């Protein structure tokens, strides 16, 4: 159990700068998820924490100890790999024992550890099998067992669920979360799957192009994305981005919407005013999540954030509990989440309610929040 502090870390491979000044800190026992598209540097960052790569500049601290020049084996970490990386020539028991034997742990203590880990992950009956005789889920379990055996200060997970099928992935996700509750150890977890990130993390670091775009709790990242990238990355289906112009036809400031067929609307935005007033008659990007455009909301009579628009249904995508309705607003495709009982057929005009209470505005040039 240990905190992890990363200060201004950069990493170059030749002339390519993969990480451009990463700083973050998590407390002991926290679950940190590094998430981002492939090539964003998240796996490199994990390898730096593990000591499998050396950092170009900056500082990594585990607890109060600077580990920049400490070898992986002396960093008191354990890692679970995407490919499981079980030693193919050893059975499960030997796989779990290998790290302990290397560290010259006594035989009876190794036996006790194997029993403890096997009990925790329910892999007793697998102990004498070779990795090739295990299914994907079992291999994943054993790989976690091997990490658990060492009782490290920090666990590192490198996309551990990517090789599993969809159903197993959800099961293992829950299991990892339960495991974290039970052992209460600091975890750094790399994934490209934003749902995994949302469900598992205490805190999420969203990365792109070697820079942390946002570092916050899952709900905060969802509700208050820092820029266009994080807004679009987190959430499924992803947030709608509608280019529109800020206008001030009367005392209210808002944006102009055109839903086709000559129908145009004014959408007032309740903001403290000043910073938005500077944007009057300029183009901005309105960000609004699909669940905020629907056939209606329970509190719509009372709320002054909810506004009615009409548009032509283009495509329907049923998901079961909701149906995704695609319409065009300002010549941009917009996804709306509608109860299946209220949908209209493609080609028909449909009344939609837009809840602007959580609507966001972005600067179209920089992608930053306004």
């Amino acid at each position, binding site marked *: 159990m240990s905190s992890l502090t990363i200060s201004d870390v950069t990493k170059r491979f030749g002339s390519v700068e993969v990480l451009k000044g990463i700083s973050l800190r998590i407390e002991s026992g926290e679950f940190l998820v590094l998430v981002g598209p492939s090539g964003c540097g998240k796996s490199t960052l994990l390898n730096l924490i593990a000591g499998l790569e050396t950092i170009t500049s900056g500082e990594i601290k585990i607890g109060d100890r600077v580990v920049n020049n400490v070898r992986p084996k002396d960093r008191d970490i354990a*890692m679970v*790999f995407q*490919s499981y*990386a079980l*030693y193919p020539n050893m059975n499960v028991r030997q796989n779990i024992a290998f790290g302990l034997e290397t560290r010259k742990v006594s035989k009876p203590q190794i036996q006790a550890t194997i029993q403890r880990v096997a009990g925790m992950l329910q892999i007793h009956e697998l102990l004498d099998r070779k990795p090739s005789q295990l299914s994907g889920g079992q291999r994943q379990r054993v790989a976690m067992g091997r990490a658990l055996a*060492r009782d490290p200060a920090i666990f590192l997970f490198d996309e551990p669920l990517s090789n599993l099928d969809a159903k197993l992935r959800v099961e293992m996700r829950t299991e990892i979360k339960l495991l974290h509750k039970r052992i209460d150890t600091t975890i750094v977890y790399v994934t490209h799957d934003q749902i995994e990130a949302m469900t598992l993390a205490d805190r999420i670091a969203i990365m792109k192009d070697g820079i942390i775009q946002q570092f916050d709790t899952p709900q905060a990242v969802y509700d208050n994305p820092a820029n266009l990238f994080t807004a679009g990355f987190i959430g499924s289906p992803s947030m709608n981005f509608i280019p529109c112009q800020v206008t001030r036809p009367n005392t209210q400031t808002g944006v102009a919407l055109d839903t086709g067929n000559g129908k145009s609307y004014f959408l007032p935005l309740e903001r403290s005013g000043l910073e938005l007033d500077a944007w009057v008659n300029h183009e901005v990007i309105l960000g609004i999540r699909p669940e905020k455009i629907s056939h209606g909301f329970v509190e719509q009579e009372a709320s002054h954030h909810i506004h009615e628009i009409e548009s032509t249904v283009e495509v329907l995508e049923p998901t079961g509990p909701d149906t995704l309705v695609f319409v065009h607003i300002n010549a941009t495709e917009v996804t709306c989440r509608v109860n299946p009982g209220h949908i209209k057929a493609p080609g028909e005009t449909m009344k939609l309610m837009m809840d602007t209470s959580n609507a966001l505005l972005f600067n179209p040039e920089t992608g930053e929040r306004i």
Partner: protein
Amino acid sequence: MPDKSPATAMYQTPGAIFGRVVIYAILIIAAIYFLIPLFVMVITSIKTMADIRTGQLISWPREVTLDAWKEAWATACIGVKCAGIKGYFWNSVKMVIPSVAISTLVGAANGYVLSMWRFRGSDTFFSCLLLGCFIPFQVILLPMASTLGRLGIAQSIAGLVLVHVVYGLAFTTLFFRNFYVTIPADLVKAAKIDGAGFFRIFWKIILPVSTPIFVVSIIWQMTQIWNDFLFGVAFSGSDSQPVTVALNNLVNTSTGVVKYNVDMAAAIIAGLPTLCVYIVAGKYFLRGLTAGAVKG
């Protein structure tokens, strides 16, 4: 017959049957073609000289005798010494075992470093090493002779071992390196985090999964070194000649009559070890050659 699948139906057409017959006929002819020399050698080696003089090349022996084998092994004259190829056979064994063992082990270590502990310039290093596969034997005869002389191991088995190890390393390194790049790098990362160092990872993780490529390397090196004639004739002394050189000398030593049965027996003895290795380990050889070609 609507319930028959198209494949079965096709199998039974006269054309398909005729095709099968042709294929088998060609295969049988090819097998006979390749086996006849061996057959002639074996039956000649168990004939008496009288039988050979009067009979046909491929006729069955009138009297089966192992005298020619005994003579080839223990009493045939090679140059002025009449002690058979026995001593030379053991020379070859003494040369092959250390050469194969050393070149294979060092090749494994090279391959391990070049695939899993890459260093600056390791790819260039590997390309240079590969050039070694294309250097003809003749080119290095003179420089190698002078090197062996300076090292004080000219005309000895130790010298031959050195030559074969150096020459074999390019091949063994290539084998092992290409095998190890198919092993996931995560395995080494996991072992590093588990606290294992360079040698512990090599012994405990990498070597145990290397059996197929070891078999390939051993068969390849064993065949190359056992069958080598040029280095054997150039770098050996009179008491360190390998069996290939002795066989040549035996056949060329004329004391009146050419003893075909003894020559044949000696040739078979000289070829037997490589034959045995193929029979024992041949299936691993094929498996090893194709390992990594197909995933799984």
